[in-house]
């Protein structure tokens, strides 16, 4: 390994791991006010939707609401399977299968 690469990876590791580490270790030893706890309880839904929407609706850097957007189309069966089965593994399989079929028929 080149020394520059070692420094780069160590630097990236430090700035990534500290934000992962500090809140959990420090805040879990404090008793937080109820309103903060309520705010923190919203985080999973808030983060997941913030990750999901752009991944479905932005294709090649632009907003895509058309029927050519395979990600948006493949989302429909995935949502149905997720709602019906509540099973994450089946949802991922349904997503992969519908995305593969769409790629096959639309290319």
């Amino acid at each position, binding site marked *: 390994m080149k020394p520059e690469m070692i420094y780069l990876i160590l*630097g990236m590791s430090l700035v990534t791991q500290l934000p992962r580490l500090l809140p959990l270790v420090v805040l879990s030893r404090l008793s937080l006010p109820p309103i903060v706890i309520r705010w923190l309880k919203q985080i999973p839904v808030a983060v997941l939707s913030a990750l999901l929407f752009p991944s479905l609706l932005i294709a090649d850097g632009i907003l895509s609401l058309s029927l050519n957007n395979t990600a948006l189309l493949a989302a429909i069966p995935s949502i149905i399977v997720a709602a019906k089965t509540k099973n994450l593994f089946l949802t991922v399989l349904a997503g992969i299968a519908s995305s593969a079929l769409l790629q096959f028929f639309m290319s």
Partner: protein
Amino acid sequence: MKNEVIKGWKAAVPVALGYLPLGLAFGILAARQGLTWIDVFFMSLLVYAGSAQFIASAMLSSGSAAAAIISTTFLVNLRHLLMSASLSPLLKHLSSPILAWISLGITDETFAAGYPEASGGKASPWFYFGLNGLSHFSWIVSTVTGCLLGSRIPDPEKWGLDFALPAMFIGLLLMQMKNRKDIIVALTGGITALVLSFLVNNSFNVLIAAITAAFTGVVIKNEA
């Protein structure tokens, strides 16, 4: 203990499945941009953050300075602060060294996949050993494999594998939606992230959108 590890593994299966195409894609890209498999191995082991690794490898090939790459990595990964903080009231029963170890395995995916178990307030460290262990292992193996095989791997898009992560986010999101308030939080987070993605660089939009959406969740009253 054994049952808890297995429960963790089960939670990790969809995550590992989602990391496979993403990791292969990163490995292929990294190889093209001159990284060796050893570089990729250590980056996946010590940084373990998909989007930051993609950005870093693109910045390396365009000749960016290390300081620029490291500060971009910091901004892109700052959203883990929120996830780590939101686990803190739920894992109070664990000791600091165990929490430190669990925290290093927090990614978008492992955080969300483990959250239902953590929200019970009794999650076992062995559950996280299974979940984080298998997920991280899958990330390292798929990125190194991608780097070693390079362009000899057929295009993962053809097999629909690029949709594994969005599908996982759909499943995780729906499983955590319990009332009308959650729908409003999700719509706020999603639309804010969408709008911001055109205004700010990198995945900084996710951090700002999540903070905003969580506030709407506090303002709105709980409804069944």
